C-alpha cells in the first residue's frame, strides 16, 4: 500500500456511536468527511462496496421506524454486510432484563454491529457495556438520534460549505425531540448558533442549561436564520394539551408560504420526516426550492454507511 505522509493522521477509535454530545468537533468533522466518500456508491452502476463483507448487522428496533430502519438496512447492505431485522415490542418484563437477554441472544448469533432504537434513554449505552459488538444508537427516548444529527449537519455543510457562523432554528416539539438534541450538539460544536423555537409547553425543562437560544415565536426568528429545521409534531408522544388546537399551532409555528416571504432567499428548509403536511409546513414549502428534505434522506444513507464503516474499523483495530 502506498505510504501516507500526513502529519498525525486522525484515528477514529470509537466502536460505538451512542450520541453526539460526547463527540468533539474533530470527530464529527471526521464522520462527515468520511461520509463524502460513500456518497458515490449510491450513484454508480454497482451500488455496493466490500468493506463489511462477512459482518453481521442487526437492526434492533423497539420502536416503529420506516425511514431510519430502511436507511440503516440499505447502508449496511451497500457495504456488503448481512442484515438481521429484529423487531420486538416492549414486553412486560422490565426493560433492563429484556434488553440484556436480547443482547445475549445477539451475541450468541455472532452479530458484529447492533443498531438499536429504544424508547428508554440510555438503552444503547447499557447495551454497549454488556456486549462485545459495536452499538449504534438509532434513537433513544428523548435523548439522542445521532445519525439524524449527523445527516442534518452533513446536508447543511454540503450546501453552505461550513456550519461556522450559521444561524439555525429548530422549530416545534423540542421537549420530545431527540433529533433537536442531536442536531444541537453537532451544529453548535461545529460553530453554528442554534435557536430552539416552539411554545413553552413543548420546551424541555432543562433548556436553559443547553447551548442554545430560545424563542417562543417563529415570526421573531424566521427572517434571521440560514436554516430552519421543522420538527414533526409527534402525536404519539404528546400527552395532555400542549397546544390548544392544531390550527393554532400551525398558525404560530407552521412554516407557511406567507412566512417564507420574510425568510432569507437562500434559507434551507429541513424536516426529519415524516411530514404532517399542512401542520408543520405547507405543501408548497415542503416541495419548494428551499426545501432540502429529500437530500436529507439521500445524505442519510452516506452518513450511516460512514458510521457503520467507522465503528467496525475501530472494533477491528482493538480486537
Amino acid at each position, binding site marked *: 500500500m*502506498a505510504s501516507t505522509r500526513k502529519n498525525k493522521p486522525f*484515528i477514529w477509535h470509537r466502536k460505538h456511536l451512542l450520541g453526539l454530545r460526547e463527540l468533539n468537533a474533530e470527530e464529527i468533522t471526521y464522520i462527515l468527511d*468520511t461520509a463524502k*466518500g460513500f456518497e458515490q*456508491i449510491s450513484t454508480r452502476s454497482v451500488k455496493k*462496496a466490500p468493506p463489511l463483507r462477512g459482518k453481521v448487522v442487526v437492526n434492533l428496533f423497539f420502536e416503529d421506524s420506516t425511514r431510519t430502519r430502511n436507511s440503516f438496512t440499505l447502508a449496511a447492505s451497500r457495504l456488503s454486510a448481512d442484515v438481521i431485522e429484529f423487531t420486538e415490542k416492549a414486553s412486560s418484563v422490565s426493560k433492563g432484563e429484556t434488553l440484556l437477554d436480547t443482547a445475549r441472544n445477539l451475541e450468541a448469533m455472532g452479530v458484529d454491529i447492533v443498531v438499536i432504537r429504544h424508547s428508554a434513554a440510555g438503552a444503547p449505552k447499557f447495551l454497549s457495556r454488556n456486549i462485545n459488538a459495536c452499538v449504534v444508537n438509532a434513537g433513544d427516548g428523548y435523548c439522542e438520534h445521532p445519525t439524524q444529527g449527523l445527516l442534518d449537519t452533513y446536508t447543511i455543510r454540503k450546501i453552505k460549505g461550513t456550519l461556522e457562523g450559521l444561524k439555525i432554528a429548530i422549530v416545534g416539539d423540542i421537549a420530545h425531540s431527540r433529533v433537536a438534541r442531536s442536531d444541537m450538539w453537532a451544529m453548535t460544536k461545529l460553530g453554528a448558533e442554534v435557536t430552539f423555537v416552539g411554545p413553552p409547553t413543548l420546551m424541555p425543562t432543562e433548556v436553559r442549561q443547553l447551548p442554545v437560544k430560545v424563542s417562543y415565536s417563529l415570526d421573531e426568528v424566521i427572517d434571521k436564520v440560514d436554516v430552519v429545521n421543522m420538527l414533526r409534531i409527534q402525536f404519539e408522544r404528546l400527552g395532555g394539551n400542549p397546544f390548544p388546537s392544531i390550527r393554532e399551532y400551525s398558525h404560530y409555528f407552521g412554516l407557511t408560504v406567507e412566512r417564507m416571504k420574510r425568510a432569507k432567499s437562500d434559507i434551507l428548509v429541513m424536516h426529519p420526516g415524516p411530514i404532517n403536511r399542512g401542520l408543520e409546513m405547507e405543501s408548497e414549502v415542503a416541495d419548494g426550492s428551499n426545501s432540502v428534505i429529500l437530500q436529507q434522506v439521500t445524505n442519510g444513507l452516506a452518513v450511516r454507511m460512514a458510521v457503520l464503516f467507522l465503528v467496525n474499523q475501530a472494533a477491528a483495530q482493538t480486537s
Partner: protein
Amino acid sequence: MKVILDSRQIEKTLKDLAGRIIAETPRQADIAAIGIRSRGEILAQRLSSRLSKMLGKDVPCGTLDITLYRDDLNSPQSAAQPQVRTTEIGFDIDDKIIILVDDVLYTGRSTRAAMDALIDLGRPRAIRLAVLVERAGREFPIQADYVGYKADVEPGKLVQVNLVESDGKDEVVVD
C-alpha cells in the same frame, strides 16, 4: 536518504511513459487516465494533460479512492487507519482503455484493490497499469504495463514519491 529521481528526471519519465502509452494504444480507442489517491492522482493528471496534447484530443482524468477495497481493513495489524476519501471520475469508464496510474508498484495489493474498485464502476475495454517507480516485492501476481523507473531497493526500505502539488517539490527518494 537517497534521491533516485530528481524533478527533471520525473518529467522526462512521464514524457517517456506518455509516448509508450500512445505507441501501444490503437488510434481510434477511447483512452482515459485514472490515478490512485493520492500521488497517483497527481501523476494521472500530468499524464493525461501530456496525452491530451500529444493526441490532440481530450484524455479525461479521474481519481480513485481504494480504501473500501483494501484487504487489510479488518486486520488489527494494519499500521494506520485509512481515511475514506472520494472517488472522482466524471466520465463513463465503459469501453474505454483505462490507464491506471500509481506512484510505486510494490506488493501489488493497491493495484488489486484498484481493479476491483474500477470494475464496480463499469466495464472498461482494458485496464493498463502505469507506475512511476517499480520495485521488487510483489505479493500478488500483478505486473505493470508501463514502468517509468525500476528501482533496486532492499526490502524494508521506503520509496517515497514527492510531488510539487502535494509535497512542495518533485523527487523520488529512498529512505
